[in-house]
């Protein structure tokens, strides 16, 4: 200790001088935007884990089947009342979902609907009021129902349901791998984007090159991951076949769900005839 006190540390001269280096400002919104959109995707996949499978959980296969059916009916129908009834039904389901999920579903469907409304505006003024109003409301109904499906069920249960619909195994395999690797490659490329952001001090005139570098490296990395993964899969005895383990039984919510949807189908035919 004493030694340390006695010892005089000589600081080099340059450390005292004030630095007034001001890096040139550069527009790097493209990095921020890329980070944000990759981040959005990754967080969306992560959110899957927080989903609970217990309360008011409708059988996923049923949910997918009736969501698709509802979208088809919505697309065919010419009755505005039917569309409004479906929207009211969807909104009432929405009101049962948790607040943060509800906000996310609504945010998405409203933004798509507004976009459609803007696109349809000229048609409205040209006197084509029917299709502009009809399409806008239909778009709201379809996006809300898709949002309800994708935000309320785990994605691996959606692939499980695809197996029930006799989608070929190779396709499910590819789909499964894709979702996992969107996450892994996304994480990988996001780190590179952060690195690019941190290291771009001042003007960076090689923006295109650096973006292309990130995309290219991601591609090369994906090639390496593929081989590793296949070997890992083989080692664990994966033969490319999928089997459904839990044969879920219908619960009372499922019967209510079926009843509501059959009601919707009947309503559809009622309004089509009228």
């Amino acid at each position: 200790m004493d030694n340390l006190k006695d010892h005089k540390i000589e600081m080099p001269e340059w450390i005292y001088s004030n630095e007034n280096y001001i890096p040139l400002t550069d527009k790097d919104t493209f990095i921020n935007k890329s980070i944000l959109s990759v981040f959005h995707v990754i967080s969306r996949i992560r959110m899957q884990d927080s989903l609970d499978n217990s309360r008011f959980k409708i059988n996923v296969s049923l949910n997918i089947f009736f969501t698709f059916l509802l979208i088809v009916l919505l697309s065919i129908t010419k009755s505005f009342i039917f569309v409004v009834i479906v929207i009211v039904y969807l909104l009432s389901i929405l009101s049962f979902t948790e607040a943060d999920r509800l906000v996310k579903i609504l945010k998405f469907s409203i933004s798509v609907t507004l976009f459609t409304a803007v696109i349809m505006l000229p048609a409205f003024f040209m006197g084509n009021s029917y299709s502009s109003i009809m399409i806008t409301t239909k778009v709201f109904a379809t996006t809300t129902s898709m949002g309800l499906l994708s935000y309320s069920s785990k994605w691996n249960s959606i692939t499980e349901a695809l197996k029930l619909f006799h989608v070929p195994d190779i396709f499910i395999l590819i789909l499964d791998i894709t979702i996992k690797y969107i996450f892994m490659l996304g994480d990988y490329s996001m780190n590179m984007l952060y690195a690019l952001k941190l290291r771009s001090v001042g003007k960076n005139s090689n923006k295109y090159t650096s973006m292309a570098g990130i995309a290219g490296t991601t591609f090369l990395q994906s090639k390496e991951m593929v081989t590793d993964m296949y070997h890992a899969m083989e080692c664990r005895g994966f033969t490319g076949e999928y089997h459904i383990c839990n044969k879920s039984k219908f619960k009372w919510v499922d019967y209510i769900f079926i009843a509501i949807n059959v009601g919707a189908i009947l309503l559809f035919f009622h309004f089509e005839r009228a």
Partner: protein
Amino acid sequence: MHIPDNYLSPSTCALMSAAMVPVWTRAVKKVKEEIPKVKIPSLGVGAAFSFLLMMFNVPLPGGTTGHAVGGTLIAILMGPYAACISVTVALLIQALLFGDGGILSFGANCFNMAFVLPFLGYFIYKAVKDNMKSEKGEYLGIILGSYVGINAAALCAAIEFGIQPLLFKDAAGQALYCPYPLSISIPAMVIPHLLVAGIVEAVFTLFIVIYIKKVSPGTMYEESDEKKNAIYGLLAFLICLTPLGLLATGTAWGEWGTEEIGSVVSGGKALGFVPQGMKAGVNFKALLPDYAVNGLPEIAGYLLSAIAGVAIFIIFFKVISSFKKDKAGGKLG
């Protein structure tokens, strides 16, 4: 370019999905032949890559940003058939889980972005590359392929939109689905792609390919002696496709002619997202009637312009390649 649900009629959606079935079947078959079993997961990873590629924003002049689609890039890197499957899976995940693009219009979206875009882009790239056997030729091929690919996809989407009001009307004559005819939908879709998105796509594709070639040569897809006629086959197929527009011609073509085209201008103004498109929209007024050659039935006129377009296209490449040969001969002499 993702078409949402309800813009297209269910029957159009069904037709487009049906058109995709043979493409998918062939793609799966070709991929099984070309790609060893070890590489099957590469399709999934490729799909993940093509999904992520759309997340990358690149700077555009004027301070804005845009993102590329990368269909041609994936076709160049992994081969057109693998690209078809990868982009299809990426589109499915977007539609099913992210709500981007419709469920019913999935077939139409796949047709535009998983079939027309990668195949046309790849075959143009291949044709140019084979005809001008030099590095510059390859780069020109990449630029042309990705630029034409994305614009062709946009044009297909525009045609799908544009035929809706002609085919599907209610008793009062009001359009049931997308209300804009071809005269509005084509400039609205194609002009932004010609001016902005196509350039982003071409530059981004070129830079990535150059990067990968530099860092890791040999990872690129090499075609196993495919018949060169493939490009002509595809072009012939595309000519056959133009009758998609034919469906629309028939009686309706003349009906909306003058009044509707006149409204392109006001439509363009209100649409808002094609600022440059407004002026071009006016030019379009003069261009469009030429599609129907005077004195010919509309169908024949439509086909004729399609064939002429392709012929000009082939001539263009022949001229380029002969120019190249001359140069080589000159050097020898």
